């Protein structure tokens, strides 16, 4: 086959150029740490990376939602704890008032304290998360429980998305904690109503112990609310763990799909460099020799 000077130089330029561009690619891969910088670099890997990136962004939001859910449940936990404490105190006071050794004045003082406890309980029931009363459902009222026990909230669920499919309920209906408001028979109503009923009985010289049964029922429902909160807190912890695990897996998968294996990349770069140097060496020698060196 005939070789001309132009075909020879053109071939040399082409082969050396392709080696140079391979070196450049290796260099960019190493510098950016990823070998998929656009969808076309490796469509299959890029498609995976696309999915993984989206999944990671979703996980970010789910863990934010989960943090909020945690705050809600912690607030509810504290509130129910306070309510439980105050109810125990009220129960003791009622027993104390009925012990028979107290005159009307101390009994009136106890009645006053019971009313104070009712106010504390309604305060605890009106506790808010960023302006949202946690026992008021989704209603727009700012304080769902009035001091006398009137309930103006609703029983709607407040939910948080914590995964593609799971929505976790983070609130407990006000009725489930405080008992149902009963306008007709306050003694069979919610915590505040019963406390007020007991206080007025004490004021009018009647025994308070008649309300103890209702108090027990109400305290039971506070306990079961606490149990619900506790189990939801465990669910939150479970979801938190799952999100952390998933994140690690997804990040590993993404890295597997698109990240540069530095060792391999460096070895490839070295090999390409060697052939680059060899080919410019050869080019230098071939271009230097000519038949003119040998003709006289």
């Amino acid at each position, binding site marked *: *086959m*005939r*070789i*001309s*000077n*132009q*075909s020879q130089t*053109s*071939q040399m330029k*082409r082969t050396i150029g392709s080696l140079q561009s391979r070196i450049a690619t290796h260099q960019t891969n190493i510098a950016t740490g990823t070998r*998929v910088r*656009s*969808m*076309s*670099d*490796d*469509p299959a890997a*890029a*498609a995976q*990376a*696309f*999915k993984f*990136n*989206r999944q990671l*962004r*979703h996980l*970010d*939001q789910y863990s*934010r*939602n989960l943090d*909020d859910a945690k705050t809600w449940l912690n607030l509810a936990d504290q509130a129910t704890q306070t309510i439980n404490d105050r109810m125990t105190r009220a129960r003791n006071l009622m027993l104390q008032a009925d012990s028979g050794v107290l005159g009307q004045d101390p009994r009136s003082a106890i009645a006053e304290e019971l009313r104070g406890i009712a106010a504390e309980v309604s305060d605890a029931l009106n506790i808010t998360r*960023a*302006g*949202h009363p946690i026992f*008021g*459902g*989704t*209603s*727009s009222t700012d304080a769902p429980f009035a001091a006398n026990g009137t309930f103006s909230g*609703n029983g*709607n669920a*407040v*939910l*948080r*998305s914590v995964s*593609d499919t799971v*929505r976790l309920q983070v609130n407990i209906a006000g009725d489930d904690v405080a008992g149902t408001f009963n306008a007709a028979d306050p003694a069979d109503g919610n915590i505040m109503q019963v406390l007020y009923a007991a206080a007025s009985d004490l004021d009018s010289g009647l025994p308070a112990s008649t309300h103890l049964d209702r108090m027990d029922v109400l305290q039971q429902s506070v306990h079961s609310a606490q149990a619900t909160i506790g189990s939801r807190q465990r669910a939150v912890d479970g979801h938190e763990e799952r999100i952390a695990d998933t994140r690690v897996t997804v990040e590993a998968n993404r890295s597997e799909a698109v990240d540069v294996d530095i060792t391999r990349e460096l070895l490839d770069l070295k090999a390409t460099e060697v052939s680059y140097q060899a080919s410019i060496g050869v080019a230098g020698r071939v271009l230097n020799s*000519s*038949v*003119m060196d040998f*003709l006289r």
Partner: protein
Amino acid sequence: MSVEGLSSAVTGLLAHRRRLDVISHNVANANTEGYSRQRVDLTAASGSATGIWSGSSSSLGGVTISGISRSRDAFMEMRAISASASASELRTSVDFHFDVESILGEPSDSGIAAAMDDLWASFDDVANFPDQLPQRVALVNSARILTERLGAADSGLRQLRQTAVETAEATVASANVLANEIATINKTIMTGAASTNHNDLRDQRDVAVRHLADLTGARVVDRDDGSVDVYVGNSSVVQGALTFELSVTETADASLSPVGLQRVDVMVGDSVRLTSMGGELAGVLTSANSTAPSALSSLDGVAATLASTVNAAHRAGEDLNADPGSDFFTGSTAATIAVHTDIVDDPSTIAAAAAGAGTRDGSTAMTIADLRNSSTGADSLYESFSVMLGMSTSSVERRSAAQSATAAKIDESRLAARSVSLDEEMVDLVATQRAYEASARVVSAIDQMLDTLVNRLGTVGR
């Protein structure tokens, strides 16, 4: 006899001086683009015709120059032209695909996909704090960022498409210039004396034809009168000294009107639409008539789905004023989609709650946020669009790389056949020099012989 030998030796001297001229021309043009090595074709002069028939032994002899030919492999030239035209078509296509890709910029944390996820996250935030204004304002911002990115991608694609149209116009203008150049050379060759050596003009014409083929995928047919005819696609562009002007027009097309574009056509004269051309022009036209419109329409599809799914869910909800939700997005194309002005003006009109559930309910916002997982939603559409674009880019890229390598190799074979090898010329130079010296020696030998005949003969006994 000796005198005839003298004259044939003179033809040898002249012929080799001519060869020397041609060698020096070759060496001078060793690196000229499109130059083909020239050869002096020598023929032994076997005497006059009458000499042959008369049986006369008298013969002039010597050497004649039958012509100066170009060394080129016609088949290789053809292959190189078509391979290089396909390579430049694919290269144009790849460049365009790369540009489209870089406009979308995926996969990244600042692209449309990320903006959509930010939007869903903002809906989730509103669902978490339904009655809080800051989250609603943040949601409006996220939504605006998304619509702006869709709009920016759309206008970027349209600008890119406009560039393709302008490139088509520039390409056609260059093609017309080249066609005129070819026709002019044709005319010179056709009208010039048959004996005139047109080799260098032919080389120039080869270069023009190659450029024209790279631009338009032109094919070339040699004619007996030394001219070439050039065809592009379904039409003739150069015939002898005639050219047919190409021009670019835009025509309404049903498949392009949904994205508000017109089809770009190349016309020959006023009425014939050029089809099945190749080269850069074909690449540019495919980009302008197919790649860009389909990317634009995919983007519009994403915008339309985004608007319709979010709007449908949003209308079912209720805002902070207990009014039913309006549309969240207005417009249904990537260029026109925007957050409803009422919502921008007053974010409390975002219907985050379910109807009648109170202002602290976020279930509608949560339903909208869940659209991120919809397999028919805007995210999925956009994802499959990005992946498909990546696939087609990478397949065009691979084809282009293969075609460029093939074209380069064929071109090297073509160059190997036609361009100058200095070593060869040097060897020829030595051979020519030797032959010249030998011819000169023959002249001096005959001279000595004549000297013998004229001056030494008949001197016996002198």
